[in-house]
């Protein structure tokens, strides 16, 4: 934890940026795809809270991490000012990421919009260990599509856009037909809550187990404020669990969504 150097920052689309920086911890000691980094926006107290961004790629050799984020509010907009050589205060990688299972032969990665980044490192690791990767990604429009090359490099890639400007017209869940899911051992999903809910439903119908990466507003990111909870069913009991500490990734079947 603490201040690290920015290696590079570039714009991927009109409002999505890729930021590479020195890892605050030694990556060779271990990390998980799906974990997140917690960014202090400025070195003063202009912002009260940090901003959580998922690990998108890790370069263990050089001990560098890349996050890919959308500049939407004041905080992420301010982060876009960072450039090579600047110092930035980052905690992480934090939380629990995606678990991989021995014996899985073919996995499905499902991403929606700015939920795609954490799938990239996961895809790379599967690819490296020769697990077949199928990626199904949804975006609003072609102009917002990101990280397509990174994912197609690791396996087959299918895209849906809401306006039909790229790939299939419609939502990503429309890609997840019975045929499409045949032979999938496990799925991994990240995206807006509405998408995760739909994915959980469809994949339950397909009888395939998987993981969901949840997004809740975070305070501390380290388990002390209890702000980021999500209802999780485990051992026959629904408990509000901290997504920063016990998540953000949970077993799909455990995750409870409102009605």
């Amino acid at each position: 934890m603490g201040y690290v150097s920015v290696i590079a920052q570039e714009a991927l689309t009109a409002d999505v940026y890729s930021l590479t920086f020195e890892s605050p911890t030694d990556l060779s000691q271990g990390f998980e795809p799906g974990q997140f980094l917690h960014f202090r926006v400025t070195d003063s107290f202009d912002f009260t809270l940090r901003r959580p961004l998922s690990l998108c790629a890790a370069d263990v050799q050089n001990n560098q991490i890349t996050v890919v984020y959308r500049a939407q509010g004041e905080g992420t907009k301010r982060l876009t000012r960072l450039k090579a050589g600047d110092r930035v205060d980052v905690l992480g990688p934090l939380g629990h990421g995606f678990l991989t299972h021995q014996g899985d032969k073919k996995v499905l990665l499902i991403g929606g919009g700015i939920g795609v980044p954490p799938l990239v490192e996961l895809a790379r690791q599967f690819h490296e260990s020769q697990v077949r990767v199928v990626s199904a990604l949804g975006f609003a429009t072609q102009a917002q599509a990101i990280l397509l090359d990174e994912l197609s490099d690791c396996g087959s890639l299918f895209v849906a856009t809401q306006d039909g400007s790229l790939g299939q017209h419609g939502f990503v869940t429309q890609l997840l037909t019975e045929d499409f899911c045949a032979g999938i051992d496990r799925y991994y999903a990240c995206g807006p809550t509405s998408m995760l809910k739909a994915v959980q439903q469809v994949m339950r119908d397909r009888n395939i187990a998987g993981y969901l990466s949840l997004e809740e507003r975070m305070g501390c990111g380290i388990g002390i404020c209890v702000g980021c909870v999500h209802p999780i069913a485990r051992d026959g009991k629904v408990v509000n669990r901290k997504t920063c500490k016990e998540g953000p990734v949970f077993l799909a079947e455990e995750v409870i969504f409102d009605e």
Partner: protein
Amino acid sequence: MNKSPNSVDMQVKFLSLTLKNPVMPASGCFSFGQEMENFYDLDLLGAVVVKATTLEERSGNKTPRLAETPAGMLNSIGLQNPGVIQVIQEELPRFRKYPNLPVIVNVAGTAVEDYVEVVENLNKSPDVSAIELNISCPNVKCGGIQFGTDPTMAAGMVHTIKSVTKVPLIVKLSPNVTDIVEMALAVEEAGADAISLINTLIGMHIDIEKRRPLLANGIGGLSGPAIKPVAVRMVYEVSSQVQIPVLGIGGIRTGQDVIEFMMAGASAVQVGTANFIDPMACPRIIDELAQWCDQHGVKKVTDLIGAARG
């Protein structure tokens, strides 16, 4: 971080407790301490205040529970905690490895009987140095705040708890009142050993895209630097009127903020929201405090208490 100069006597006697220094994390901003052990040696702290503890386990409010605001934040956690039995059995014993670290348990409830039962349970634990009575949580429907805004009810509650507890009783007041001095005098009279000031102000943030309050609970508690001027004012006013010590809370993020609160009349302080952006906030603040004292020829940190009250 620079090491604290040891020329400054940082110790504060607070009630029957000896604090190594006047800085402790605030309730709800430290959980039960386990996570913070990854960041620093808890023995550096003056004391710890753990998350509000209720009789039964509580799951708290729906999310979103947090919103950032200018120089502050809103929370509507709603007292999520594992219940007093679990706290006594699982959480508090972990502090035994710090024999010189006072552990203050923040107690919340709905009816007076709940509070009494929590305190009676805590009486059985050897790990409780003091109780901080939370009659000021704005985030639960029947969560104690009615006790925190009515002097007569507050006094009744304090009187009852005082007759039950075996450890010193600190009463944490709500700032959402017309007359904070009246509240303070009422709880002092009823037997409070000390007063904590302030809990959060009640606020709301509206998500204009969604056209509804951002927090699922609608309202939440405002904390952080934004509220510091209100907190300092209340500490100043109350500490000028009561005889019992006051713990200052609200927006502290630097050693200089601690000095402000102590000069206003606080005997010690609690740091809340600042822990979220900087997990090292408490030890950093302790160092900054010691250094300021050193640079300004303050030999004993207790000399600062009330210095601005003239």
